[in-house]
């Protein structure tokens, strides 16, 4: 295979595309299977599992998911939680990242090192006391439990700090001489320049919030407050003999993130790539 090294000849190009296309089929097939199955009826699924189409496209499966299991409600709940978490994370990490990158204060480096240390500690370690804490605040079974603890992000703060450190110092020195306050500088100079970094942070927060499962499972109990992943696990229990319904629901959970990814691919990939490189 040619890979990274040279300009490709015509036949090399041909084989490269053949290999990549075959891998693409493997990577995409489960999604095709999901959509295809979600538009069949149950007997059609079992008689011809590989078939892409049944006798007709049964969009009513999606209607069933909305009407009988209230997926619309779960989606709204999740959207609300996701927006709050995402906006909150961006605000706190821009403020904190700026403080770490550009301001001098005693204890700064110590605090920053503690932040870095937290990235390695898995959530499961604090899950049990977090539950107790939610009981204490009376946030069990409320959206607060899915939002407020998640607004702080060491990882996002780290990302924004790295980005701000790359901006030239002269920017703010000029603004300071003009008598601007730090907050004005952050808002008028830094934030407008940080579009790509904020977009990257957005994609990370968004994925995390929309796809999270174990914590909602613990913190949310009544169906009216379920998030999509919980609703989906619940549907699997109730409709386990009807794969079209289950996979229609799965499609409703999976497609929003895939669509956002297709629209903003660059930022998703950039976030991952920079963490690997730094």
């Amino acid at each position, binding site marked *: 295979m040619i*890979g*990274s*090294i*040279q300009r*490709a000849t015509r036949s090399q*190009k041909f084989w*490269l595309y053949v*290999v*990549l296309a075959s*891998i*693409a089929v493997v*990577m*995409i097939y*489960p*999604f095709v*299977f999901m959509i295809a199955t979600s538009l069949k009826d149950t007997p059609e699924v079992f008689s011809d*599992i*590989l078939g892409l189409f049944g006798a007709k496209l049964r969009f009513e499966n999606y209607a069933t998911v909305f009407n009988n299991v209230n997926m619309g409600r779960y989606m709204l709940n999740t959207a609300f939680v996701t927006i709050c978490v995402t906006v909150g994370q961006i605000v*706190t990490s821009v403020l*904190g990242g*700026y*403080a770490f990158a550009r*301001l*001098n*204060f*005693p204890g*700064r480096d*110590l605090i920053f090192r503690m932040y*870095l240390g937290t990235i*390695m*500690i*898995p959530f*499961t*370690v*604090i899950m*049990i*006391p*977090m539950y107790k*804490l939610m009981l204490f605040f009376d946030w069990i079974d409320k959206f607060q439990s899915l939002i*407020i603890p998640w607004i*702080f992000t060491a990882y996002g703060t780290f990302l924004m700090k790295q980005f701000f450190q790359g901006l030239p110092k002269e920017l703010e020195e000029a603004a300071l001489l003009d008598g601007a306050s*730090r907050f004005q500088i952050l808002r008028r100079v830094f934030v407008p320049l940080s579009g790509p970094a904020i977009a990257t942070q957005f994609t990370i927060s968004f994925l995390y919030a929309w*796809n999270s*499962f*174990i914590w909602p499972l613990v913190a949310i109990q009544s169906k009216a407050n379920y998030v999509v992943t919980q609703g*989906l696990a619940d549907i*699997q229990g109730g409709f386990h003999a009807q794969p079209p319904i289950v*996979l229609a629901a799965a499609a409703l*959970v*999976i497609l929003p*993130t*895939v669509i956002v*990814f297709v629209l903003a691919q660059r930022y*998703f*990939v950039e976030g*991952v*790539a920079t963490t*690997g*490189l*730094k």
Partner: protein
Amino acid sequence: MSVQTATSSRFRLFKRRTPRQPMTKAARREAIEGYLFLLPNFLGFVIFFAIPLLMSLYYSFTDYDLFNEPNFVGIKNYQQAVGFSIQPEAYQTAVQNNKSFIDAVGSMIKTNDPIFWTSLGNTIVYALGVLILTVPTAFWLAWLLNSKVRGMVFFRGLFYIPVVAAIVGVALVWFWMFQRESGVLNVVITGIVNLLNGLITPLGLKPIVDPTIGWLTDPNWAMSSLIIMRSWQTVGYNMVIFLAALQAVPHMLFEAALVDGATRGDIRAKIVVPLLTPTIFFVVVTNIINGLQIFAEPYIMTQGGPANATITTVYYLYQKGFQRFQMGYGASLAWIVFGIIFAVTSVQFRLSKRWVYEEG
């Protein structure tokens, strides 16, 4: 900043103090502003991270059950989880029952919580399985995508799509693909077997038997199925990291090596892999950390079965802590998982000094 410096400084929490000078008015103002900017973030860190972390450590030494006040029980939880006793008489019984030597020795060890050990073994097998399947594949894919040919960004995006999909949704899709009867995988395997039999039976060869694998119902297969699924889901993530690192390798290096008569194999083994060791290191560590936390897949697809073949430590922790409310015990399990993550990471950092290439 490289991965190395990020962590070597992590272990050196306290910096040597420089003699403190009285702060100027401007410096004091800056410091106050610094604290104010950091405040929302820092409050979250203290209330929703530092405090729960200390509570968790405390709970792991208590019999906390959510409803009663926790009582301090010392290291009892840890003893219950990892402790074992040796029972010599079991060896005699096993030998009398014509067990093999290894089985007989094994039967002497009586663990206090066999399910914990099963879950730990499963989790480690899972993390290593995903690592072995995805790291070489991801590297190879990145190598291909680094070609100077049109359409590579398109394929990169395509391969990355599984990464952004919710694990719970993906688990359900694969649940139906993994079905023993009429699941996609077995139907395809049956098709291939029939095709091959059609070719070889006329030649007088014995027909191949259709294996009809119980992907999620056969205890020998269930964990492998979860490994296959997660590998499919994360290979794109690792690939993107490798690709970014490959793209950072100056092309001149390749060209110079080619001029000097190096083969492609030489270039890959002697230039690219050494240059990418920090990235490989990063990928290995993050994959292990993520793999050890597996929960949603067994919860959705197998409920830890069949016969505890897919029970994982975090799933066991969830059962103990939130279904049986043995929260003290659950907390100790969480700390054991963290201990393993910490040990793996530290050992990797130690080893990395030997195999990771650092510039300068």
